[in-house]
């Protein structure tokens, strides 16, 4: 159907987007790779720049900060995923029920997703988690308990909570969209046949949601691997909240050890790509359909 003429026109129309993204990807990526093999301290004129081979990779990998940062990253990503998926499924099922003011409740639930990360982190940090004046401190004192110093004594849990609050709407919204496409007659038939609620959930609802859950897991993982602002304004990476992203940020911009930071960056890119491959497969399959 498409003529030779329209094909070349199509290629021309695609060119700007493709060229821009190609440049955006290749130029910085090549530079990061190049830096990762060099000793490079822009702010330290006394230290000669030079070829480092795989030194940076080995040093980043074997530094005492590396494994804790990987562990922190995994705990945060895993914790947020668990909370948002479980609560997201429950909320989606609830919001799918008949009720008054469904649209309004949906709006309330979705709202946190639109709050910019620096705002939500600071509001939680100060107005809820402040050990003296925060609402939680008031609440703890009301029950006669000693207020918790959230961001230093329960730092990881606090950050997981803040980030979960931000991402719960996303999970809920997507799972709700998926649930709404569920065939109601199938559920009714199962109910008539006397299948109890939990069996209907396990054998009908959950399998139907499997694809949506996978997509939520993959997309959230990619975004969660690189959360930054929430840590930047709450703990600044202290109290065991230094994620891989934050560690690289500190190496590159704070201590200006660009070679070492770039090697870390390459690790982060590899990690994200492992997740991305799975996501692309699902999305790609959907394109064929």
């Amino acid at each position, binding site marked *: 159907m498409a003529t030779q003429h329209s094909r070349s026109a199509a290629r021309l129309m695609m060119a700007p987007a*493709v060229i821009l993204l190609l440049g955006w990807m290749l130029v910085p990526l090549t530079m990061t790779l190049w830096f990762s093999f060099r000793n490079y301290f822009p702010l330290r004129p006394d230290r000669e720049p030079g070829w480092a081979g795989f030194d940076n990779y080995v040093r980043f990998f074997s530094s005492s900060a590396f494994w804790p940062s990987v562990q922190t990253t995994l705990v945060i990503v895993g914790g947020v995923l668990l909370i948002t998926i479980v609560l997201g499924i429950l909320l989606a099922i609830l919001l799918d029920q008949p009720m008054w003011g469904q649209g309004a409740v949906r709006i309330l639930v979705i709202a946190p997703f639109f709050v*910019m990360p620096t705002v939500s982190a600071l509001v939680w940090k100060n*107005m809820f988690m402040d050990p003296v004046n925060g609402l939680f401190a008031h609440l703890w004192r009301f029950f006669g308990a000693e207020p918790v110093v959230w961001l230093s004594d329960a730092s990881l849990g606090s950050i997981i909570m803040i980030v979960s609050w931000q991402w719960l709407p996303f999970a809920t919204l997507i799972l709700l969209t998926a649930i709404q496409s569920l065939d109601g007659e199938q559920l009714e038939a199962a109910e008539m046949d006397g299948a109890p609620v939990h069996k209907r959930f396990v054998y009908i609802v959950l399998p139907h949601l499997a694809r949506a859950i996978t997509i939520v897991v993959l997309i959230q993982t990619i975004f969660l691997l690189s959360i930054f602002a929430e840590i930047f304004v709450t703990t600044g990476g202290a109290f065991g909240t230094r994620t891989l992203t934050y560690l690289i940020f500190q190496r590159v911009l704070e201590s200006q050890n660009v070679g070492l930071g770039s090697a870390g960056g390459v690790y982060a890119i590899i990690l994200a790509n492992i997740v991305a491959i799975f996501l692309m497969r699902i999305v790609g399959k959907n394109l064929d359909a």
Partner: protein
Amino acid sequence: MARSVTTQRKAIYTIVAWGIGLLIFFPILWTILTSFKTEAVAIADPPVFLFFDWTLENYAVVQERSNYMRFLWNSVLLAGLSTLFGIIIAVPAAWSMAFVPSRRTKDILLWMLSTKMLPAVGVLYPIYLIFIKLGLLDSRAGLIIVLMLINLPIIVWMLYTYFREIPGEILEAARMDGASLRSEIIYVLTPMAIPGIASTLLLNFILAWNEAFWTLNLTAVNAAPLTAFIASYSSPEGLFFAKLSAASTMAIAPILILGWFSQKQLVRGLTFGAVK
């Protein structure tokens, strides 16, 4: 009988759902309420909810102290222009992929998606260096380009999924009736494409407005948008809850309102058409 049972059920669902909804919304509500309190009332123990002397003082103080309007203007410019340029570049691309697909269309789409998954921190220093060399650090132009590039894959994808839903037969019918290419675009395609373009614009404006990695790392004073302005409150100074609340409310209010209009597009846009 049956009817009363369903009504009862519906009432229970309504109460539970509203309770949970309000709980999730509470931090935002509390921020908005606190922004109208004096600093002393803001930290009162026990907390005061509605019955206090409402004041607009904090909003005045925030504006006076930090020239809030400039940050707001930066946010509007950065989010608006980056999205607009992104759309201008993406419309022809998505258009040709939807209507003149080739064997490579799928690969190109997936590759574009993969650039979105590149962790920003992995290319932080190169971008930082390029910005210094080109004098783009803390400039609006530089950030507009970066924000456009990071959202371009999502824009292309969203437009592509919308365009693909426009039936090709309509175009053929218009051509049969003797419509020129120009009138085909103006009278047939544009009206059908506008809703999709509008939703894409809306969602990506929101994403650009809230972007907080590049805006924090590449700006200082001149180009800093609201994300950076709020971050400057991270070092506390005396009593500042009410002022923080006022600043936060102003930063999120416009987006909350826009966001409510974009719920449906959110799913499509952020799952790359995989969930509709």
